[in-house]
């Protein structure tokens, strides 16, 4: 944009904010590097050997991501990449810090770093390949099939720790297809609802002050409800079913602007949850655990109680990185599901609130992207992705802190888990792509002599 235009068209001059992003990224890399050094000093009294490599590695990833954004999505939101980098970096520090506890098994930070690299690679690929998010609209029904396959796959694989949410590939490891399905199903919803929203919104009967949808329009939501119940029953995964159902209700509401969908959604999900929890003992155990977090089970302290002790012992300011005892939680999940307990114990209430606010900020930037998007598909996609992210953060953090029953999901970016980190980098990339489209200035008008301050009037 040439500066001479500012006096005529104001919307054209929206700054790209890439330099803001770069400045924030510097902090997003430096903070985890200092945290890394802090852990080493606290545990061994010396700077950790891998400090330089870690710092350079994280800086390199952030730098590449930034350059790609600068090139391929210059008007994208400037906050999302730094926040994702900071959370991912801190997650690596926490996982490495827990790797230092011999009782917690083999080191997982190196593989997590590899997964993070793959995540950033996918982030780059999405930004480079996906020139416009509306292309995704073409794949509405293919997305549906892919998402359903991904969701159903874990049924055929053995469950791990009571939840069948894994697909084990020999020699590679295990994947959580649910994390990817989250994004793909959002694409399907966005495409489907964009087409059907008028039918869903307008053809309705009024009953007791609510607009009730017609039976035939109720079909899809009931199918989804049944599907999420099936996930719950066959994969015993409370979190994922809650996530998908909540996601669909949010998107329906946004698409149709009908409050009745929310009422409907809440009634159905409450009924489903109560119904399943009465006979599914795995879910019932979780609920019992939630109601009595400190109760002893078979004379032993439960993981839930250990988590609460970790939070309580952290207090206001925490024990300091590397100086807590969250290893007492034991089991296999301190680095994944329970990672927030380590944050709470070592960084205290202050640090934990900071982390939650980072998530809150990332979510609100996503919602803002939805508001700014100009096309309905983009709006639905952006709100779906941010809504799914928000629900996931709420379900995991709420579960770990005892606000709601615990479910087997991981904290995006922070927790150990390859599928989660890769999928969430892709999620951020799509949001950035939508926000780039939304904030991109309208194509500049063809150089017109009208804009010149002095001119010769031609009358041809």
């Amino acid at each position: 944009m040439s500066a001479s235009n500012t006096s005529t068209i104001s919307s054209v001059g929206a700054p790209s904010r890439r330099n803001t992003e770069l400045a924030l990224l510097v902090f997003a890399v430096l903070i985890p590097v200092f945290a890394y050094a802090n852990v080493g000093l606290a545990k061994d009294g010396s700077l950790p050997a891998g400090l330089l490599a870690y710092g350079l590695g994280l800086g390199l990833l952030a730098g590449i991501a930034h350059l790609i954004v600068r090139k391929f999505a210059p008007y994208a939101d400037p906050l999302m990449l730094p926040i994702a980098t900071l959370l991912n970096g801190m997650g690596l520090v926490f996982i490495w810090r827990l790797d230092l506890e011999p009782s917690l098994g083999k080191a997982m930070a190196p593989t997590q770093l590899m997964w993070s690299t793959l995540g950033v690679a996918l982030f780059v690929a999405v930004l480079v390949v996906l020139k416009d998010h509306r292309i995704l609209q073409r794949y509405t029904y293919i997305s549906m099939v892919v998402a359903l396959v991904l969701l159903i796959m874990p049924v055929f694989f053995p469950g791990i720790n009571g939840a069948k949410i894994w697909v084990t590939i020999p020699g590679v490891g295990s994947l959580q297809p649910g994390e990817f399905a989250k994004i793909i199903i959002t694409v399907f919803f966005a495409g489907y609802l964009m087409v059907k929203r008028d039918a869903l919104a307008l053809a309705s009967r009024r009953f007791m002050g609510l607009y009730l949808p017609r039976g035939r329009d109720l079909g899809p939501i009931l199918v989804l409800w049944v599907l999420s119940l099936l996930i719950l029953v066959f994969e015993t995964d409370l979190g994922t079913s809650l996530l998908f159902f909540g996601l669909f209700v949010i998107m329906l509401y946004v698409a149709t602007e009908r409050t009745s969908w929310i009422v409907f959604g809440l009634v159905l999900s409450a009924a489903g949850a109560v119904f399943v929890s009465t006979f599914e003992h795995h879910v019932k155990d979780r609920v019992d655990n939630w109601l009595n977090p400190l109760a002893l089970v078979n004379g032993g302290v439960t993981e839930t109680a250990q988590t609460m002790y970790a939070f309580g012992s952290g207090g206001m300011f925490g024990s300091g990185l590397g100086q807590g005892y969250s290893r007492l939680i034991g089991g296999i999940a301190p680095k994944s599901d329970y990672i927030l307990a380590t944050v709470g114990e070592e960084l205290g209430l202050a640090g934990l609130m900071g982390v939650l606010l980072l998530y809150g900020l990332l979510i609100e930037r996503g919602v803002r992207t939805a508001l700014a998007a100009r096309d309905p598909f983009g709006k639905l996609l952006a709100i779906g992705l941010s809504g799914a992210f928000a629900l996931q953060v709420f379900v995991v953090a709420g579960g770990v802190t005892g606000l709601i029953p615990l479910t087997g999901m991981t904290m995006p970016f922070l927790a150990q888990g390859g599928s989660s980190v890769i999928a969430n980098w892709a999620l951020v990339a799509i949001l950035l792509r939508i926000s780039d489209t939304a904030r991109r200035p309208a194509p500049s008008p063809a150089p017109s002599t009208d804009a010149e301050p002095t001119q010769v009037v031609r009358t041809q």
Partner: protein
Amino acid sequence: MNKPLRRVAVFCGLLVLALLIRVNYVQFVTGDELANDKHNRRVSINQFAQPRGDIVVGDKSLTGSVETPGSDFKYKATFKDGPMWAPVTGYASQAYQTSFLEGVYDKFLTGNDDRLFFNRTIDMLTGKEKQGGKVITTLNAKAQLAAFTGLGNKKGAVAALDPRTGAILALASTPSYDPSSIAGTSKKTDEKNWLALQKANNPDDPMLNRALRQVYPPGSTFKVVTAAAALENGLYTDVDAETRSPLPYKLPQSSRNLENEGDLPCKNASLRVALKVSCNTVFGRIGQDLGKDKMREEAEKFGFNKEILTPVRADASVYSKNMDEPSNVLSAIGQYNTAATPLQMAMVAAAIANDGKLMQPYMVDKLQAPNLNVIEQTKPETYSQPVSAANAQKLQQMMETVVKEGTGTNAQIDGVTVGGKTGTAQNGVGNSKNPYAWFISYAKTADGSPVAVAVVVEDSDASRGDISGGGLAAPIAKKVMEAVLNK
């Protein structure tokens, strides 16, 4: 579409707000509670994260700390002469918390006490390990040794005080246990040892601190209190004058007689003679004449019916409030519900030896910070004045007569004035179990009385007839007094 979007934005904000409120509730509102929950292992980890401060007698440490590699707990407590000092130190166990001085001063010994804040801060700034403070006790190592070896294999307890200050000089209880055995070597052996020490598995109950936490019927030793009540209430003023004491003496509201132990010259006997030969009838009659309230008031001035903090808690001794007349008569000779800890009876002897002024018993002289600064110094305090100085001297004469020519001759020490009183308390229904042998005494020198002691021996292999305070308990009291007097 923007209106529902804004509402979803608010909804997402509310989700995050709910999380923020929840973590504030967990970490701020219930934080302390969770941090100090008894199942939170961090409590014990912090307790043993640094070498524990010592508990000191004289210039010798009773406790220490050694590193325990390969454990959550960095250090464990060690105990020198554990069984002898267990009633004083208590235990500090990685698995079973703490007791007695180790328990009362846990925070000070671990260095977590608020009063050590500056030490902690300076240690932190200079990069030193956190250090615990020292607890300097008032105990006398020689007296403790005399008490512990005197009790030997017998079941019983000794409490000795400095009557002038209230400082506790000896506190022994047998059978005892070694706190090292449960301090934390391996979880398995500790658990085995701990279970073996529990009363349910060990009828001897070695972890019971009999000097502070067990009340025994004091038997005839309580007659000193009854005599004090008689003098204080003006029932009698001259210890050598005849009392109004019939023999045989029929219990009030009863057809039963109160018997003496044998054919004693108790009819209208003077207080001095009555105490010397330990007349039940004379002191029973005093109880009847004074009534239960005056008796209880006097007993309470000596410390009965109240827990005593030394600062380790001693159980309250008992003189019943509500009872009928014959029960009060029996209570006045240390039977029925009357019950006292050895510490309580040592306090009775100490009050009389200190001319009627009872000093608050205490066992901690001072608390010392790691940098040797004295953080807290105990100053002797008066607990009460159960008898006037004049009456106290009369009681001293009576008790000295007991040792000189009465039932307590076993406690005589050459060249030292000793006053005492024996007791043989009934135990079990119809005195079916072995009686308790009691002896309380004090020694007097030119500058007041430096020691008062109470000894109780619970049972014995000796035949029932041989059990008497004079035979079993007095020699132990004598050894303890000699140890304090440096004889």
